[in-house]
């Protein structure tokens, strides 16, 4: 999805503001939301890919104003409502001191047994590319989740590292299977990505799934 989350190369966000002596959490609610999010996994988003996509589906203006843990809170609340574990308006009613109804117990479905590795998968085929190969990224703009950043679409680069086959976020986020693919660290020269605006002597490495790539000549 071409969303607000895909920020690489955007202008207008100003300077990087560094806070000295920053605490791990800035407020108690942030810590509670972090812990709750690790423990309560709404059934409609059973994977990390689906949970990332849930953040990407937030209203773009809210994405920018909620802050990091605010986004996590909204994702958790929405996931619980969409999964039927929380009623629409139930949080507001609780805040107002007028709980909607006698709280009914609910249950999360049992978590499936963990695979031997959270995302690396064994596949029969060999990687399509080797370190040193030139590649070109596809102009891949799916309506759903993807991990090909917008700034790296339809660009020429060179494979520098070949990683094991991993669960494909594009399908797994939508419950369409793990469809594991090899992942490659692909080096893009600054000029290929940013044209005249590129700083000299800079490059960006992006980790890309095999189906994002086609053979090409490195820039």
């Amino acid at each position: 999805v071409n969303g607000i989350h895909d920020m690489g190369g955007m202008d207008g966000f100003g300077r990087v503001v560094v806070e000295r002596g920053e605490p791990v959490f800035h407020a108690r609610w942030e810590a509670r939301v972090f812990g709750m999010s690790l423990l309560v996994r709404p059934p409609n988003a059973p994977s990390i890919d689906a949970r990332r996509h849930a953040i990407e589906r937030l209203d773009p203006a809210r994405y920018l104003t909620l802050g990091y843990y605010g986004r996590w809170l909204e994702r958790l609340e929405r996931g619980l409502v969409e999964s039927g574990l929380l009623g629409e308006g139930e949080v507001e009613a609780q805040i107002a001191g007028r709980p909607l109804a006698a709280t009914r117990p609910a249950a999360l479905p049992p978590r499936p047994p963990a695979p031997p590795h959270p995302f690396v998968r064994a596949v029969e085929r060999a990687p399509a590319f080797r370190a040193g190969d030139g590649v070109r990224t596809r102009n891949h703009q799916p309506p759903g989740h993807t991990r090909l950043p917008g700034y790296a679409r339809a660009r020429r680069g060179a494979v520098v590292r070949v990683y094991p086959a991993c669960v494909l976020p594009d399908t797994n986020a939508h419950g369409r299977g793990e469809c594991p693919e090899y992942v490659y660290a692909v080096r893009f020269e600054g000029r290929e990505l940013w044209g005249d605006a590129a700083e000299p002597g800079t490059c960006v490495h992006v980790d890309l799934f095999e189906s994002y790539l086609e053979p090409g000549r490195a820039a």
Partner: protein
Amino acid sequence: VSESHPRADLALRAEALEKLLVDKGLLDPAAVDAIVRHYEQDVGPLNGAKVVARAWVDPEYRRRLLADGTAAIAELGFGGPQGEYMVVVENTPRVHNVVVCTLCSCYPWPVLGLPPAWYKDPAYRSRIVREPRAVLAEMGLALDPQVEVRVWDSSSEVRYLVLPERPARSEALSEEHLRALVTRDAMIGVAVVPPPRDG
């Protein structure tokens, strides 16, 4: 709901949500306490500093770390969520590495803890890929133009850790003293490790 006080609103919402989840039997608040305690007290950049200092004093460990980051980091007892496939990239006099996640805020929790706010903010995520030298200079790291800057965008589940250069005048320091020099920012790649202060 006032948009002008979003943080206060979020605190109320989080509190109400936790109460509802506990009442529904979906959440044990003590389990939240344990997770918060773990990330506030047990995990942080000191873990990464141990890895870096070991690599500086032990060439054989450094070789293993660069060849298989996950396994070498596990030798020191670190691993788990957001550190399941670790890759360590090495700074040299000619190459400077810096890590970002432009799409969300992926970060190697087992070795660095949870990310600082600036790492998650739009300014860093949008700019470091396009103008890394300018951003690093703003953050206090002016690199020689001859040094190549390599940005690593964490777009898969691979998590990156920068192995900073061992600073000058640190030859006589013990591994323990070296650890104390290593900063979180140097392991993200927005700083270098400064030489030890005299004395």
